[in-house]
């Protein structure tokens, strides 16, 4: 569906911040991109959305070169949610904010109304449709930015650190929403530093380091093999670390607290 092929990008020609990166994202996938600050994660997402153009290499959308596409063209296919919702919201009500994208894409008034209603229902914001956005909680604002992207009916949603600054309930709610959207066929690309999310939610993890893609595989492969996790500024999630202590021979890989509970039950040989 969307692909970076041998892409190199730099704000200055001689100082590339991305070096020969290839990445393919299929329909309905759930992918996480991780890595230390400045490793090139956000740059990858900017290239995918045509906010930046590669110095060399190609960006392909549905197999065709997307070099001539503007961000507005890409908006029909990809929704983007920035880290700070306060910097994206500008209209006077939640419903009007959500309607902005469909209006720009030329939807008819009926289509706009339907798209807004559906997006607000999906994100649990129907009750606050007429509220003034600055009065919402941080979590609601983040869901509003997701609703604004969803109203354009994209096939893919890119989220840059969406859980930062959120309480645990809002974080959980947001992750459930992303899982639900993914189950409905929306591809999710999540830029995150959160190792618990990285271990549990995506089907595939891409790790960036110093402008290069240094790992691509499943979360299980990432945390079960002898990768230089610390060198990439990643860490083992608590459940994974406990699993490694309990099974140092690598006979079992624990990815979540649920996995750990199941294994302990089996090891202890009985019901709880």
């Amino acid at each position, binding site marked *: 569906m969307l692909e970076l092929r041998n892409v190199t990008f730099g704000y200055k020609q001689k100082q590339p911040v991305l070096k020969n990166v290839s990445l393919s994202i299929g329909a309905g996938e759930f992918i996480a991109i991780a890595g230390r600050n400045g490793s090139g994660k956000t740059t990858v997402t900017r290239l995918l*959305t045509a*906010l930046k153009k590669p110095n060399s290499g190609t960006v392909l959308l549905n197999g065709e070169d997307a070099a001539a596409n*503007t*961000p*507005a*063209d*890409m*908006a*029909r296919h*990809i*929704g*983007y949610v*920035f880290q*700070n919702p306060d*910097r*994206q919201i*500008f*209209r*006077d009500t939640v419903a*009007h904010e959500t*309607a*902005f*994208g*469909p*209006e*720009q*894409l*030329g*939807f*008819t*008034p009926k289509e*706009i*109304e339907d798209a807004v209603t559906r997006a607000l229902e999906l994100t649990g914001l129907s009750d606050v449709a007429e509220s003034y956005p*600055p009065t919402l909680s941080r979590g609601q604002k983040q869901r509003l930015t997701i609703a*604004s*992207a969803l109203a*354009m009916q994209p096939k893919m949603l890119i989220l840059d650190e969406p859980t930062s600054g959120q309480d645990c309930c809002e974080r959980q709610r947001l992750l459930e929403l992303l899982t639900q959207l993914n189950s409905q066929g929306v591809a999710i690309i999540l830029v995150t530093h959160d190792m618990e999310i990285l271990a549990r939610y995506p089907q595939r993890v891409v790790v960036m380091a110093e402008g290069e893609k240094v790992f691509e595989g499943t979360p299980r492969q990432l945390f079960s093999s002898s990768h230089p996790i610390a060198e990439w500024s990643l860490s083992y999630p608590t459940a994974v670390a406990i699993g490694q202590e309990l099974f140092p021979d690598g006979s079992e890989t624990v990815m979540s607290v649920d996995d750990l509970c199941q294994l302990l039950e089996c090891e202890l040989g009985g019901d709880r």
Partner: protein
Amino acid sequence: MNKAAPLTKLILTLAVSVWSLLLHTVSGLTILVFGQLALIVMAKAFGKTYKALAALTVFAAVLAGLQYLLGSGLELSLVTGLRMISMTEVFLLLLATTRMQDLTAALVSQCRVPYEYAFMFTAALRFVPDFIAESRSVQEAQACRGYSAKGSIFRRMTSYLAIVEPLVLRAVSRSETMAMSLALRGFGGASRSFTANVALGSRDYAMFAAMAAVTAGLVIVR
């Protein structure tokens, strides 16, 4: 006023500005100022605008007072102050009774203003309260680190740079993110639609006729 089309309110804004220039008596301008105030109250917008109206009145009083002290007559000074209130009050009426997207839709579809310019104008108005809130938060953050605006005017002005600098940097950073966010929501694309209904009704045509009559009357009297 709330039921009038945005275009009607835009034309009223223009008409009131013209009337303010045509009127040159204290009584005429007082009627115009209180007429607008009545419209604000009828539109249930007084709660949203009373602070701005109070500030406007104080500013106009200072302006008229200065003019009087500098040798102008009392009537001329009052006319200047009232004219200033009248011409500004109508903008408060417009902004308090019109949604920004309705204003944008009217400017684009009826006044043929390019969408980018209309959006820029309405977005700038929308961000005024955010800018004030951000200024307050920067002031509080600086105050926690020992910032104080006390002292002579010159000292206050120089110390205010500590507020202005981060405020400008934050505004630039915010506008950059906003621009990217808008681009990724289709801003600048070829097709566009508006949900706002800005069509003119019989009420609007009646208001146009009344405005034209008042303008013609004032021109004849003058």
